[in-house]
């Protein structure tokens, strides 16, 4: 597997311009000859579909939900970063670049991150022009806030629904193109596999989720914008349908998978409360701007929070990190909460929660002010837990939230399979080992609106493609494999379910194992144990899973089974990746690699690289390749939030 990043030459600030000039173009009149498939309609997929169609390509777009407006980008609350420096508080493209690469613990490519910071400003202009109702100051200018501990106010927002508004903006641009005929939209389709002809991505096989029909679709290039793999853990803040299948199928067809062990665990989520729980709910981390995180000083103290005197409370983040306090980055906050709970100081019925207390903020700023800032979040919290944060502290616990790892891509966002591109959370490119708050929306839209069209033009301009048809033997054989696999999944469905297992039972078992052994803190022993246990779970799944119904109808159990089958394979490279990265960096804490003060210790001498896994066959161990990371413009420093 060759990992050529195609990083352009020249000074950092000129690389993107140089690259755009060096890339080939396609004449506007010729673009209609090319057909592009886009899978997924989140921020990256919807914006890419709209933009490519505007430029004249024939775009065919697929989504799993009933409408492209429902993709999980919609759930992002906090905001989107941009280096506009509207607040005149010292922000710049270079600072956003530096914060992002440092926040990622120096495990991302400099050139990619710089480009992200550069186009961030265009994103805001684009979204405003579409009619996205960003928050405004009374004078009519755009409002900003500081987010996730950033020292500047660079986050643009639309109440607590920024993701929704940006997605609906991209969806409206996509809808306009559907109306004009530039995009043909296929909702309720699941991509089942990728089709490669003569070494290039030439199409996909989908399943129509309404009637179960398998369909072949040809194209000149395929773009995956299928999100992250957080649902491998069963419980996460992802939507129920979020899955790794599209990326995993691409991996099994030869695409390198980069840094699968980089999983962001978000500190402010509503704690788990029962076995029946289907997902975790994130509370915006803006809450940490005013809430104080604490646990009782004594382990096992089960008194009601209001009866615990000040002197018997441990404000552990403020104590340990005096300069950042409650605003330390996500990974640090999560890890410390876990540490307290591990010491028996966790609160609530499960002992797996810490307090987030607004008492002092209410005293200082008045109830009214606090409600104005967080009213909708308090309401959401009360709806789920029946507790009112005005009267008692919130309880929070970390939860799996975002995956920095993903398909390896070059500077053009092309995977190791020519003609296959990966955008947004689906790729690994910009966030290194930890993503900063309000940067996911930025990256999804940067890739879709401003990067991919250059890459597609260059690929089309430099590649000669023969016509393919849906009856090409490559398509027929992949479709047959997909059908066989569905058939295998359903083979236990004849007869009684007695002695069999359900899809959810297996998914929960896998999730629990990954959470315990490959979650917030990892060590060799735990990872090796997970690696040993996963094949057993997988075997039980294939031998005993019971799926009601058939493949030729709307069958939600079968849909989930296919996704879980892929998580059961994927989990293994996630663990393997965590095992081989014998350093701590960003979200990835290897207990063997810590400083004397129990902080994460990076090992640049041995691990300043992207780990890229290559599939070698179901029975073979995947092969690890390394893309070295070199830093020409910044000096990697040890992060310190003390």
């Amino acid at each position: 597997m060759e990992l050529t990043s195609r990083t352009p030459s020249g000074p950092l600030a000129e690389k993107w311009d140089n690259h755009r000039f060096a890339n080939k173009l396609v004449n506007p009149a010729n673009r209609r000859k090319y057909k592009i498939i886009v899978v997924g309609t989140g921020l990256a997929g919807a914006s890419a579909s709209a933009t490519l169609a505007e430029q004249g390509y024939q775009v065919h777009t697929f989504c799993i939900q009933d409408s492209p407006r429902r993709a999980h980008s919609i759930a992002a609350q906090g905001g989107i970063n941009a280096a506009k420096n509207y607040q005149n508080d010292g922000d710049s493209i270079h600072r956003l670049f530096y914060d992002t690469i440092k926040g990622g613990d120096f495990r991302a490519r400099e050139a990619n991150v710089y480009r992200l910071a550069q186009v961030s400003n265009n994103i805001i202009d684009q979204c405003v022009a579409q009619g996205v109702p960003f928050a405004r100051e009374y004078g009519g200018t755009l409002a900003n806030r500081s987010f996730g501990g950033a020292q500047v106010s660079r986050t643009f927002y639309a109440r607590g629904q920024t993701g929704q508004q940006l997605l609906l903006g991209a969806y409206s641009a996509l809808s306009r193109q559907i109306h004009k005929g530039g995009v043909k939209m296929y909702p309720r389709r699941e991509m089942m596999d990728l089709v490669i002809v003569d070494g290039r991505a030439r199409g996909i096989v989908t399943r129509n989720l309404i009637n179960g029909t398998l369909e072949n679709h040809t194209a000149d290039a395929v773009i995956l914008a299928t999100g992250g793999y957080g649902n491998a853990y069963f419980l996460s803040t992802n939507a129920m349908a979020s899955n790794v299948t599209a990326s995993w199928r691409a991996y099994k067809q030869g695409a390198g998978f980069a840094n699968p062990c980089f999983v962001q665990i978000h500190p402010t989520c509503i704690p788990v409360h029962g076995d029946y729980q289907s997902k975790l709910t994130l509370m915006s981390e803006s809450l940490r701007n005013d809430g104080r995180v604490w646990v009782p000083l004594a382990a096992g103290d089960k008194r009601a929070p209001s009866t615990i005197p000040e002197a018997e409370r441990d404000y552990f983040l403020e104590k340990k990190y005096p300069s950042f306090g409650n605003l330390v980055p996500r990974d640090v906050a999560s890890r410390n909460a876990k540490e307290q709970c591990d010491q028996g100081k966790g609160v609530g019925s499960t002992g797996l929660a810490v307090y987030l207390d607004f008492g002092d903020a209410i005293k200082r700023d008045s109830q009214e002010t606090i409600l104005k800032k967080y009213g909708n979040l308090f309401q959401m919290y009360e709806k789920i837990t029946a507790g009112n944060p005005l009267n008692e502290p919130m309880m929070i616990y970390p939860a799996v939230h975002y995956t920095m790892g993903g398909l390896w891509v070059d500077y053009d966002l092309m995977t190791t399979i020519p003609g296959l591109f990966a955008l947004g959370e689906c790729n690994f490119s910009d966030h290194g080992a930890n993503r900063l708050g309000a940067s996911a929306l930025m990256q999804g839209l940067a890739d879709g609106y401003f990067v991919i069209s250059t890459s597609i033009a260059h690929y089309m301009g430099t590649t000669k493609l023969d016509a393919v048809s849906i009856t090409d033997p490559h398509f027929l054989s992949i479709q047959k494999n997909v059908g066989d696999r569905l058939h295998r999944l359903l083979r236990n469905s004849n007869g009684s379910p007695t002695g069999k297992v359900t899809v959810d039972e297996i998914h929960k078992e896998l999730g629990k194992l990954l959470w315990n052994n490959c979650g917030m803190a990892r060590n060799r022993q735990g990872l090796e144990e997970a690696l040993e246990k996963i094949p057993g779970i997988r075997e039980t799944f294939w031998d005993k899973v019971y799926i009601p119904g058939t493949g030729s109808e709307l069958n939600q159990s079968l849909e989930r089974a296919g996704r879980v089958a892929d998580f059961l394979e994927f989990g293994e490279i996630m663990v393997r990746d965590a095992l081989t990265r014998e350093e701590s960096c960003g979200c990835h804490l290897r207990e063997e690699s810590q400083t004397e003060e129990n902080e994460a210790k990076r090992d640049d001498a041995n691990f300043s690289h992207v780990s890229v896994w290559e599939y070698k066959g179901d029975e073979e161990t995947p092969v690890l390749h390394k893309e070295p990371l070199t830093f020409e413009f910044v000096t990697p420093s040890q992060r310190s939030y003390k």
Partner: protein
Amino acid sequence: MSTIDLTLQIWRQKNSDSLGNLQTYTLTGISTDMSFLEMLDVLNEKLTKEGKDPVAFDHDCREGICGMCGSVINGIAHGPEKETTLCQLHMRNFKTGDILVVEPFRSRAFPIRKDLIVDRSAFDRIIQSGGYVSVNTGGTPDGNAIPIPAETAELAMDAAACIGCGACVAACPNGAAMLFTSAKISQLCLLPQGKVERKARALAMVKIMDEEGFGNCSNERECEAVCPKGISIRNIARMNREFIAAALFEG
């Protein structure tokens, strides 16, 4: 943790071409901390283990924002709690002995696909007919080039909060999609960016809305009552004004 025992009567229908009916199920020991959809998960797990077909229902984010979920519970779209999607409705709203009738969002324009799943693609087609500002990617002016009063931005945001779930249609005795359509028309006609195309937009979106088989508004206010995002029927008044103004000029 308290638990309750329930009787459910759920609409079962194999596909669009078959007839459906209500079937009765009993569930015991349901934690009151569960969401409504988690309760359905428990039922489905039970049905699966009994070798029966689980209940098909749409859902995705389970945070009340994607708009994918929704059923009619005892005659009320999204159930008894105000401004709440079905996924955010918790079982503490119910008590032991309750009988819950669970039906899909019914409307001529929303054909049933299976059990509680309906086809809401008519909403997408309404947006496709004009629910946007016609700008291409690139070449847009600086975000601060057009000042927008904070109150206007807030009003536009109130309308833009619509999640496209379809509860408004299910609740309306006329099966009207006016709350949905007017929310988008309002958002865009309030903002300067959307004013350029306001007439053509109002005409096009109302036309498609009618063609898709949705009914008209007779001021029942049922839509507003069930809207999980609290979208106001003032938006319908605004849409009517936009439509009339456009029809007079373009007529």
